[in-house]
């Protein structure tokens, strides 16, 4: 008698996301739990987007500053640099719009986005500053400026989703919906956004990211629960791709900053810092992230190798 492999039965399929205008990038589409190639279809690999900012970052630690300090004064040069080292997508964070930063206006932000879109071919993710009131002003204007470029706009939250969702649908964009580490709230926000008329299959869930050692397991288990609810329990409101905004959280941790002199036991800062980002990223792939936003090119490379190696067993 031959051995019968017990397979999970699935009741959902994650929508496919194809974004960008000239050059496109894609992710999503899975019909089984992450990397369960023996149980379902995986038309796309997870995608990694390189994060850039619209203003010279003040909080990038040394290890990451080294990589980008020659280009970070100009987001176009920064984006082109990322492209030159193999980026498939860019995530532009409009950090300057935050009231505690430069508090730059919606129009200034829209202007920057337009110029960037004119200059680069890569698909673009446009992120606000995570200041809910300011994002509610900025993101609609930016979404309108990027009309027709088929971008991903983020992040809509419970307190500001209305204007952002309306502008994103009008501009023909995808939308990131962020809730705070809670599967019920993630579902609720998706219901609210779809009730505005925003298409359900153009929503990307951000369950709120975290870094290894800093609440990592909360994000991990919320992601797991969302994916299980969406695919196995057939909860259509949670059957959506997920994003992990990895770099933003990882590069705040002490492990990416403390020097070898400060803590000799922790070993090489360089290796430690980029591994912190890579390990966080790879782990979120296992819990169901389809899109990763990352910073360090070497961490991206390690994560990409991880994805390639896992995908090499697909169909075997």
């Amino acid at each position: 008698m031959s051995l019968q492999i017990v397979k999970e039965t699935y009741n959902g399929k994650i929508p496919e996301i194809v974004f960008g205008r000239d050059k496109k990038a894609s992710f999503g589409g899975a019909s089984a739990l992450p990397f369960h190639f023996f149980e379902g279809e995986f038309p796309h690999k997870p995608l990694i987007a390189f994060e850039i900012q619209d203003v010279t970052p003040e909080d990038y630690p040394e290890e990451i500053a080294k990589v980008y300090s020659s280009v970070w004064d100009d987001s176009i040069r920064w984006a082109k640099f990322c492209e030159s080292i193999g980026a498939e997508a860019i995530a532009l964070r409009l950090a300057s719009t935050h009231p505690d930063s430069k508090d730059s206006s919606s129009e200034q932000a829209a202007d920057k986005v337009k110029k960037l879109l004119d200059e680069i071919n890569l698909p673009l993710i446009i992120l606000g500053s995570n200041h809910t009131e300011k994002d509610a002003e900025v993101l609609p204007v930016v979404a309108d400026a990027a009309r027709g470029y088929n971008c991903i706009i983020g992040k809509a939250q419970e307190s500001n989703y209305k204007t952002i969702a309306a502008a994103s649908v009008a501009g023909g964009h995808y939308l990131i919906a962020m809730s705070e580490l809670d599967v019920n709230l993630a579902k609720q926000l998706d219901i609210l956004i779809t009730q505005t008329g925003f298409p359900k299959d153009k929503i990307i869930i951000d369950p709120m990211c975290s870094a290894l050692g800093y609440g990592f397991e909360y994000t991990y288990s919320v992601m797991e629960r969302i994916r299980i609810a969406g695919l196995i329990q057939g909860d259509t409101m949670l059957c959506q791709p997920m994003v992990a905004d990895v770099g933003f959280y990882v590069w705040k941790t002490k492990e990416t900053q403390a020097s070898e002199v400060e803590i000799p036991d922790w070993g090489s800062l360089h290796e430690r810092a980029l591994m912190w980002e890579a390990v966080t990223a790879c782990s979120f792939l296992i819990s169901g992230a389809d899109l990763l936003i990352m910073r360090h090119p070497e961490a991206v490379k390690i994560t990409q190798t991880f994805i390639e190696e896992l995908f090499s067993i697909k169909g075997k």
Partner: protein
Amino acid sequence: MLIIGERLSIISKKVREALIKKDKEPIKQIAIEQWNFGAQMIEANIGPAENRGEELMEWIVTTIQESVPLPVSLDTTNPAAMEAGLKIHNNQWGKPLINSTSLDPERFIMFELAAKYSVPIIALTVGKGGLPRDAEERVEIAVQLMEKSVEYGISLEDIYLDPLVLQISGSQNQAKEVLKAVRLFHELNDPPMKTIVGLSNLSNGCPKHLRPVLNKYFFALLMYEGLSAAIVNPAEVIEVVKTINVITGKTLYAHSYLEI
């Protein structure tokens, strides 16, 4: 929980008149309303239909399926009308359901039809001796119905056991016997037997304002016992279904759970 919309019944004056006049509009409207409230199947109850039963069943099945993409539960005691319905039914959205057979030998022909068209069938736990007295008697009849269905070559997974909901105003103690029967029916097989009820008979004969109250609470209890299907007014039970699914963990809670 398979929700079957009950409203297209010969008992309703509006439906009866539409059937007589062959007026499609009211039929379609009622089908669509039930679909909008979450019906996954539409019941077409044409009664005994002794005159022109076949034509009547064909007409109503076609009319329903012209308006909603759902399968139809065929309710008639007329075997020829039943077969006509089975023949004309469009299986694109699922198989039709035969409503119903029982231990009454006159109804065995329905088993034959279920086997011939390989469709599911409702088996009422009504014995030769009339209405069952309690849950245990319902189980005895259920076992005999299961034996019969095997005799006719019908898979037990195609049988919906109906414990027969009786009127609360006349047979109050039967309500809890029905609940118990649903629980016991599931244990008669592995995988568990499917169960079904015609819910609103519970409140037949009760004041109009009480009917939805009685139906809804009873339905919540039936769901808790694991009922698989129900012939109901979908608008009346939709909140119960969603809420009980949340309480029992089948659906993930969100503040707007009633709106989806």
